[in-house]
């Protein structure tokens, strides 16, 4: 680049010279694609010994009356150049960054570094899902002892000492008056003894029956039972509440069918079937071609039971129901052998 010097009386020249400098710098800068070269150019032009500085130094040769005008012009050019170089630097920096990021590219399809996370047992998942539906309908959750008084497990539920379920072959006894509870119904008895109506409660828990172990039987399994006691509770309420439950749990398309049944502690008693969750009611292997599967047993609480816990059946009525959590879980996931639930094989538990 040639050097420029101010000469007295050559103002027009000067302007041209300056424009010339700008053009040359711009051109030079546009061809630079390394940051250090750009910096070198900046120093060459704007540095202490740079071209523009030198032009400014030569201001002493300019006529005093022209100095302000020339000075202003030079400064304007300086700003213009500075700004241009600055911009150019941003461009180069961005380009360099992009290059660098490009080199840092990774294979996003490689697997993640797994942070171990566990899962709840399928029985617990079912239990919690059912529980939450009933809590939403105003039910409390009660628990009770697994080793229970025979009185609470049988007598107060209108199950007389001569009833077959009380035989040693069907129930596990600790002593004649203590038994491994055969259902969670004694929790209902305890609740009614402790609490005045209105009562809305569910009682999830483990129960024990002297069944030999096979694919569908286990001496230990889980139940959720429920109880509602209030003034004027009707069988319509029983059906209504369990219909809400079934639709929440299985979806709005589910249909209910009631079959009269028998339990010592409810009367009338009714068994509730739902349209088969596998075939939707057309008939399949799961529902044995009937289109229906058993969901739960229920009924209006027997007046004898109410009287036994000191609730006047003339004033109050209620209903009770009970599910087998294991059966519902197996049905839901298509598990064909109840024993898998208690084996705790990790490969099994990981599936749910």
């Amino acid at each position, binding site marked *: 680049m040639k050097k420029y010097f101010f000469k007295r009386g050559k103002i027009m020249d000067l302007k041209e010279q300056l424009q010339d400098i700008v053009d040359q710098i711009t051109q030079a800068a546009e061809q630079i694609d390394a940051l250090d070269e750009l910096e070198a150019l900046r120093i060459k032009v704007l540095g202490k010994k740079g071209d523009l500085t030198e032009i400014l130094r030569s201001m002493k040769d300019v006529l005093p009356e022209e100095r302000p005008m020339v000075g202003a012009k030079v400064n304007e050019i300086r700003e213009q150049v500075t700004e241009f170089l600055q911009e150019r630097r941003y461009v180069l920096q961005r380009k360099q960054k992009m290059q660098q990021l490009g080199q840092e590219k990774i294979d996003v399809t490689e697997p993640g570094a797994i*942070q171990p*996370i*566990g*899962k*709840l*047992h399928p029985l*617990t998942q079912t239990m*919690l899902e059912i529980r939450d539906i*009933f*809590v939403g*309908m*105003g039910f*409390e*959750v009660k628990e009770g*002892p*697994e*080793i*229970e008084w025979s009185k609470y497990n049988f007598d107060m539920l209108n199950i007389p000492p*001569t009833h*077959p379920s009380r*035989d040693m072959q069907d129930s*596990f*006894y*600790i*002593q004649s008056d*203590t038994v*491994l509870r055969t259902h969670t119904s004694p929790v209902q008895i305890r609740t009614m003894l402790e609490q005045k109506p*209105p009562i*809305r409660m569910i009682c999830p828990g483990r129960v024990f029956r*002297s069944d030999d172990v096979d694919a569908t039987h286990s*001496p*230990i399994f889980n139940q959720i039972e429920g109880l*509602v006691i*209030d003034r*004027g509770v*009707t*069988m*319509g*309420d029983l*059906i*209504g509440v369990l*219909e809400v439950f079934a639709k929440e749990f299985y979806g709005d398309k589910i249909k209910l069918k*009631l*079959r*009269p*049944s*028998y339990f010592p502690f409810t*009367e*009338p*008693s*009714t068994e509730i079937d739902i349209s088969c969750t596998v075939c939707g009611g057309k008939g399949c292997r799961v529902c044995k071609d009937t289109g229906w599967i058993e969901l739960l047993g229920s009924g*209006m609480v027997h*007046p004898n039971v109410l009287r036994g816990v000191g609730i006047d059946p003339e004033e109050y*009525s209620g209903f009770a129901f009970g599910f087998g959590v294991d059966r519902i879980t197996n049905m839901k996931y298509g598990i064909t052998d109840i024993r898998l639930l*208690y084996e*705790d*094989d*990790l*490969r099994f*538990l990981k599936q749910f």
Partner: protein
Amino acid sequence: MKAPMSWLADYVDLTDVTPKQIQDILTLRGLEITSIDDVYGEISNVVVARVEKMTVHPDSDHMFICQMDVGSGEPLQIVTGAQNVSEGDWVPAALHGATLPGGVKIKKGKLRGEVSNGMLCSGEELLLQEGDYPTAGVDGIMILQGDDFVAGVDIKEFLGINEVVFEAEPTPNRPDCLSIIGIARELSAALDRELHLPEIANVGELVEDVHSNTLSIDIEAGDLCSRYMARLLNDIKIEPSPEWMQRKLKAVGLNTINNIVDITNFVMMEYGQPMHAFDFDGVEGNHIIVRRAKGEEVLTTLDEKERTLNESMLVIADEKKAIALAGVMGGENLEITDQTKTVLLESAVFDGYNVRQTAKTLGMSSDASTRFSKGLDIEGTKIALLRACQLIQDMNAGAVQGQTYDVCCADLTRRILRARVEKINQILALSLSAQEMAAILNSLFMPTIVEDQILVVEIPHFREDMEGEADVAEEVARVIGHNNIQPTLMRGDLVRGRLTKQQKQLDRIRYDLCGLGAYESITYAFTGNSEYDQMQLSQDDPLRVESVKIANPFGEDNALMRTTLVVGMLNVIATNAKRRIPDFRFFEIGYVHRKNPNPEELPTQTQMLCIACYGPQEDFYTLKGMVESLLSSLDAPASWSCTAGGDEYYHPGRKALFSIGREQIGQMGEVHPDVCSAYGIPKRAYIAEISLDALLPLCATKVKKFKSLPRYPAIDRDLALIVPVETEAGALAEMIKRNGGKYLQNVNLFDVYHGENIGLDVKSLAYSLHYQADDHTLKDEEVNQSIQEILKSVEKGFSAKIR
């Protein structure tokens, strides 16, 4: 209980009702029909036909062209290859469009050029055997026997194999439905068709004088036998029972034996009343005694097994010996044989509970014992006896003597039940009139009248289950149909639906532990001493001796209620480790039980949490870290502490007790190598157990108060101390904390070093100390002063020196 449709049709008209309809009707009324067995159901369009004319097939030396009379008026040509057919024979003919068992379809076609409009059938093709029809087993066509044929009659109807059998499962309160008539009664009510009971002709007068020269009856155990009726029959001719009776018994799954025994079984199925026939000539002293067995009394029952009885069992005896186990099985000594001349026919009601206990104790449940167990109709005792006598007479199997003996300890008056119409409507959410309800009860054979909006119901003895108003409501509900009750939603005061504090804490624990990588396991609550042996528990270990024993367990290995969740967890670890799963974390929440010293109370029940880690990445500290994270998440008091110690099944040098204040809340450690090898666990395993009943109440539930964030910079210092090798890092940290002054906020162990260059009897513990003041920027001098204080105290307390 098997109920053949044809047998039901003897008592109630079933024309125009399909088996499926019957199943639905009965099931929706509470008498569940679990299945319909219809073996011959597939056979269709097979008719009785006569071979009018037979000619040899022109193009075949073994086929015949038959012109058949199939009842259509026109002869029908059918070609057959069978060699046993002659002109004039009556045979089953499958016509065009017929179906045979197995879904085989018959269509008309040509056989070697000759039109064949169907097929003549063999017994085998109709799924019949010689036992079903005499000629069914022959090689060739099943030639029908007899001379009373109508061409075109459906073969199933002709052979009486039109047998649809229902499997009925009556609920326990309805033992009356364990009989064909009981089920027919329900059907009659459901279909609104008349019930036709067998007409029992007068077969002799009834006497209640039970002591005569020919027979006397005494009930010594009146509490176990409410009615005993008997009848004597002479001139017994033992022979097979008639074919119609055999067919009925076979259809309900009973074997046929001889006419007398078959009649008792037939009546049992028909009326639900079990009966027994004794060879009366063997009855010593012509005296029947109903008594408890004598201790160690021996009786050989009909199944040829010798039974040793006890005093709780009821027997029928003569003056010298027991001759039957009442309600369970007869004795071999008075079995009906071909030589039997005189029969004593028994129809009685024994105590159901006693019969069931006897049957169960001796392991010999029978159709009879089941019926006695569930309860009998005390009025039916007599009807059944008379029916059996009538059948014996009708079948010429013997001569009925003139007397019916009846010893009855029960009150035979029918009970009257009163039920309020309003109350029933209220419970069922219905609005029926009193007359409508009365009609329902009348249809169920319970005579009912209405008195001032009250139903007055006469309860027949076959409905002993009817005890109160609720039972009446139940009858009304099942006849109206449960599905016809409109669903409603509960009304009344709002009730709070909520979880308790502890239930929420349990949810939190479950989800936290999943977040910490653990899977939830659920194991059985039973354990046994062999399991405790594997755990290397000493004989007097409280976990062993305080176990609650099950009186009637599934074997010794399941005889105890677990006192610790560790038993189950060790099995879970072993199962997964043996299945080559390299690493895992598990947790279980469950109850453990211990004997209660106070016999007035139930055994103690404690809710426990058990956590386990297994795998190359795991050690004592990973598990301890999980426990610490959990305690922090639960807002357990910061004062919880951990000291060396714990049960014997842990590694003696790697076990710790957790406490909050003075209360021990749990323990953890590496599983003792001996325990691991006893369970076949190949690598080190770590287990923690925490009593949730102890821990959860101690966890904070107060609303937390906000503390402003630090406004002044903190200072962190590292402090490495050389201490004797046995020094506990926790205790040292505790001392540092106590002596570090008010600005010391946190003490964290970050390095433990043990090596020759510092001497093998010492180790280096490096802590990072975090200082922070709320009100000013800390100066170095303040921190230095604290460090000096710390050094002084740890030197005194632990002979610790700065490294």
